């Protein structure tokens, strides 16, 4: 039995030097402390060896069920958490090896939009000071120039600039998410990680925010990592999609290829589980219903992480870690039997 990292050595990864972001064999393990002396008795393998690139101007969708490691990947990419192993490179700067002033200098170029617009905005600050904070901190503008920039940003995200002196609680959920987006773009970043930015919003508000993100992307030339468990929305917004399961990438391809020709059994099951808003189609669809629950990332199964639920698993899947292979042009998957 082997517990080697699933993905193959770096040479065989899809590698694109022109990409804005490279993530190489990234791992993040959280220690589990226990016993009388609070010693480390195990580890949550939240991210367990992931490799991908994000190309300039594209939206890479990162999908996976809860606990699969999506948020952790985002946090480690922005160096909000340290990596356990592996490398993150942003525009040829290896963030995982950069510290202090140098890291502070790159930070404004990468931003994050969070899931919960309630929790991520300070309730005691006005909208102007929330959005102005990064501008002030990085001395990007001051005085009337800062005020003008704040108004410009509010307008850009579809809020009324005359509301700059209001507090977050005076806004609706969708408006608060717009404030979060204004803050994220305040310093003209190139890259934004959107971590489930619409998950907490009502259906009718979700499309407002997605349309805003799309229009900002084309206006400002942004590159996105769009993290979501909503596979339909990811199809709508992403150019390429990575499917995560238990901290590992199962499949990575162009959105249209991934959705029309999924190669990995997990991707196939995941897509088949998503209901489609079309009663006629739903009546005809054959579903792959997976049995059982997702294993804990503290005790991932040996071999292929999906082997406890995979409908076509064989002996080999328990003993041998599947290789990360390119099955078609720019279409990668980790399964012994995918073709």
């Amino acid at each position, binding site marked *: 039995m082997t517990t080697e990292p699933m993905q193959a050595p770096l040479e065989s990864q899809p590698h694109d030097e022109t990409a804005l972001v490279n993530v190489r064999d990234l791992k993040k393990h959280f220690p589990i402390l226990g016993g009388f002396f609070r010693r480390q008795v195990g580890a949550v393998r939240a991210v367990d060896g992931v490799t991908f690139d994000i190309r300039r101007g594209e939206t890479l969708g990162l999908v996976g069920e809860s606990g699969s490691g999506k948020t952790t990947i985002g946090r480690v990419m922005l160096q909000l958490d340290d990596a356990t192993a592996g490398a993150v490179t942003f525009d040829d700067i290896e963030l995982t090896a950069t510290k202090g002033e140098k890291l502070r200098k790159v930070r404004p170029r990468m931003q994050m939009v969070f899931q919960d617009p309630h929790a991520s905005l300070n309730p005691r600050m006005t909208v102007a000071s929330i959005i102005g904070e990064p501008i002030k901190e990085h001395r990007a503008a001051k005085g009337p120039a800062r005020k003008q920039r704040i108004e410009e940003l509010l307008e850009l995200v579809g809020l009324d600039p005359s509301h700059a002196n209001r507090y977050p609680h005076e806004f609706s959920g*969708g408006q608060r998410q717009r404030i979060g987006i204004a803050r994220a773009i305040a310093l003209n970043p190139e890259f934004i990680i959107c971590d489930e930015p619409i998950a907490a919003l009502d259906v*009718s508000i979700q499309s407002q925010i*997605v*349309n805003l993100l799309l229009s900002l992307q084309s206006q400002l030339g942004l590159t996105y990592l769009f993290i979501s*468990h909503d596979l339909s929305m990811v199809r709508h917004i992403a150019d390429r999609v990575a499917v995560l399961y238990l901290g590992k990438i199962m499949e990575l391809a162009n959105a*249209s290829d991934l959705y029309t020709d999924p190669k990995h059994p997990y991707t196939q099951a995941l897509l088949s589980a998503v*209901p489609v808003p*079309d009663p006629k189609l739903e009546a005809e669809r054959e579903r792959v219903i997976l049995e059982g629950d997702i294993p804990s990332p503290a005790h991932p199964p040996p071999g292929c992480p999906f082997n406890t639920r995979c409908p076509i698993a064989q002996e080999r899947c328990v003993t041998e870690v599947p290789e990360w292979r390119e099955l078609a042009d720019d279409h990668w998957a980790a399964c012994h039997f995918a073709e």
Partner: protein
Amino acid sequence: MGPGLTFPKGAAVAAVAFEIDGGVAYKACKQVSTMSQSQPVLQVTDLTTQFDTQDGMVHAVNGVSFNLWPGEFLGVVGESGSGKSVTMMSLLRLIPMPPGQIVAGEAQYEGVDLLQIDIDDLRDIRGGKIGFIFQDPMTSLNPVLTVGFQIEESLKIHQHLPSAMREARALELLELVGIPSPEQRLKSYPHELSGGMRQRVMIAVALACSPQILIADEPTTALDVTIQAQIIELIKDLREKLGTAVIWITHDLGVVAGVADRVVVMYGGQIVEEALVDDLYESPKHPYTVGLLGSIPRLDQKGEDLISIPGSPPSLFKPPEACTFAPRCPWAYERCHTENPALAPIEGTRKVACWWDVENDRPRYDH
């Protein structure tokens, strides 16, 4: 706002082309005739529920009427705060009173009005003939009692089964809802189970007494999509086997498309549209439904730009004196701002609460 999309008026009109399709019309007729032969199992009329809060009166449910037919799968959709839960909780008098009060309405079930009968009689019905499942099983499962005990308790109260038979029946129920190693699970506490397993236990408890009606309030919203698919499959299967009528509340229009026979759409504490599921998705009649269906992307095709419904849901601090969707509606005209349209029948089995006929682009009523 987003790339140019403010709710194209063409969407509904284009969709109407399907209406002429004989298949749909036939199906609708068939369903109507079977429906008119039987009596609804539940008949809700003019339900009105309010909450007297520090900030003022919340008009949570405003004159809601609907029927539930035997064995039917009724989907209830609407965004959060639209009154879905309060409607169903009011029927079973499960809202906190005060601050809640059921101001008006009737809920006819087997010749009695659930809103009027003695609370002890209602308790017999709740969890007996009418079962319910909530979004978060932890709110209705007792954390300090084993799963087995809780199912058996329900069997004791509602079915008066002798204790010897209760354990066997509890085991059978856990098997029915697809729980692995059911003997062991009977001895488990709720916190020892995963979210999906807890929801299955809730379903087992709800089904313990072979209910005639099962009310499921967002039972899969907190679950992952592969687990959601398991639960949906389970409930569909149980409905086939047991003939239970199901009311399924959700904000997910995909889920409804897959499970429901008929759908009611709620907005601002009112039902704004009611239709057979195929009809609703093919040709939504209410501007809110049109916008909602246009605002969700599809998994099976790379679609067009998404419709943005501008603005946000209405405040419930005032009783509805005009159409509550008017501030967000591209079709709104004078009448919409002064009179609240009632839910009224249109062709076939359909109902809509709107002054405007979006397909023909003219007022729906001459008077």
